[in-house]
């Protein structure tokens, strides 16, 4: 019994890390370019896009999860197309946990990175152009390096948020032991079934993991000025 429990704690811990890393990887790949465009470009509907990106930050995660079901569920707008063609549905898989964490944590990345990119000195960007560098070169060698602190902060916040994701994950991925029960979900299950000792263990483990991650991130941010 003890061995089983240890196994399930270990499983949840590993799943949580896996979901958070994968979600964060997608967040970096999409969030940094999105932040760049929102910070540097003027286009129609820009503020609308910003609002859509920000909404998951203020909506209850269950509502975000509800929208995700409407879009990606087996009968959802996109989910049905995928299911009809391939027989695959993302619902109740660990991919769903990644998707939920991605959507909920993305605003933290976009907001933080956008602010950092907007605060890069206009003259430094202009200097890069007058020195013969085009836009991509300037973005990669001047703007992003100078916004690095804000971007790292965004990554840290997104990862931490993804690790702690609960509501949207519950809606989309369910809480299936040994399959989709990340640490927050496992803790919830343990608490409602009165298994306080095990819940304690997991709460402490999650807290230490998050704290350790923030500590590493702080060291890195301080070193890289």
């Amino acid at each position, binding site marked *: 019994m003890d061995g089983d429990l240890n196994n399930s704690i270990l499983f949840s811990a590993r799943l949580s890390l896996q979901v958070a890393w994968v979600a964060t990887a997608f967040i970096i790949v999409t969030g940094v370019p999105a932040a760049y465009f929102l910070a540097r470009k003027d286009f129609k509907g820009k503020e609308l896009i910003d609002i859509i990106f920000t909404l998951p930050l203020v909506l209850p995660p269950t509502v975000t999860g509800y929208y995700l079901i409407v879009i990606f569920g087996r009968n959802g707008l996109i989910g049905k197309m995928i299911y009809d063609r391939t027989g695959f549905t993302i619902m109740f898989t660990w991919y769903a946990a990644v998707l939920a964490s991605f959507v909920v944590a993305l605003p933290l990345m976009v907001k933080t990175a956008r602010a950092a990119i907007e605060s890069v000195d206009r003259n*430094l960007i*202009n200097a890069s*152009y*007058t*020195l*013969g*560098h085009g836009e991509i070169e300037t973005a990669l*060698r001047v703007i992003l390096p100078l916004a690095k602190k804000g971007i790292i902060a965004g990554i840290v916040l997104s990862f931490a948020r993804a690790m702690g994701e609960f509501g949207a994950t519950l809606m989309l991925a369910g809480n299936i032991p040994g399959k989709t029960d990340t640490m927050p979900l496992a803790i919830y299950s343990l608490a409602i079934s009165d298994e306080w000792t095990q819940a304690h263990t997991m709460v402490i483990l999650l807290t230490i993991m998050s704290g350790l991650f923030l500590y590493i991130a702080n060291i890195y941010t301080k070193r890289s000025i």
Partner: protein
Amino acid sequence: MMGLSVSLKKKVKGFTLDAAWEIGDELAVLFGYSGSGKSLTLQMIAGLIRPDDGMIRLDSKTYFDNSAGIDDPPQLRAFGYVFQDLALFPHMTVFRNIIFGAPEIPKDEKVSRAKEMIEAFKLTGLEDRYPSEISGGQKQRAAFARALIRQPDALLLDEPFSALDHPLRLEMRGFLQEVRKRFAIPVILVTHDFDEASFLADKIIVYSHGKVAQVGSLKEVMNQPSSAEVQMLADTKKV
């Protein structure tokens, strides 16, 4: 036709710039009160701000011609630009700042040319320092080296000495004359310091409320000012 010729029209909030002038291989000073459109002119020449109408031509190349639909981006215009705050990249060493100014040159040549610039601009020993670790005068020289490494066809200077204290400013005047000798290209210097203008200028272009009030040599501007305002500008520094 060699040299730089511009005609620029630009409306910004409550201000209209409408100026045209040309210079040859000489040092021209854009002179006038703050807010008369001097810096705006420089930024439009470099391609950082788009004029509403007009034309910008350097030697035989046209960089901007509104009626012909020509508007080259700043990276394709062969100007060296020194900003008022110098705009050295804080995350790059002096060496990397300078080398950043020569993107289209092959790597080996880039390095050897950067070494030449470092020696010529008396920056030897400072290659691995960051801009925050060098003095004001050294920063000036690094900014000039960075702007000149790719051998631009003209040099645009937006009040680069305004933040320096007086003795250093005098030193930088001498330095700028050396630069002129080494790189025989047109130089446009924006300043509102008449002393500086009179010391350096081959030609003075006086700006007033977004228009060119007078173009001429120092003597002409001082002895035959075209208006009461030009006279006042010149008189303030005449001792």
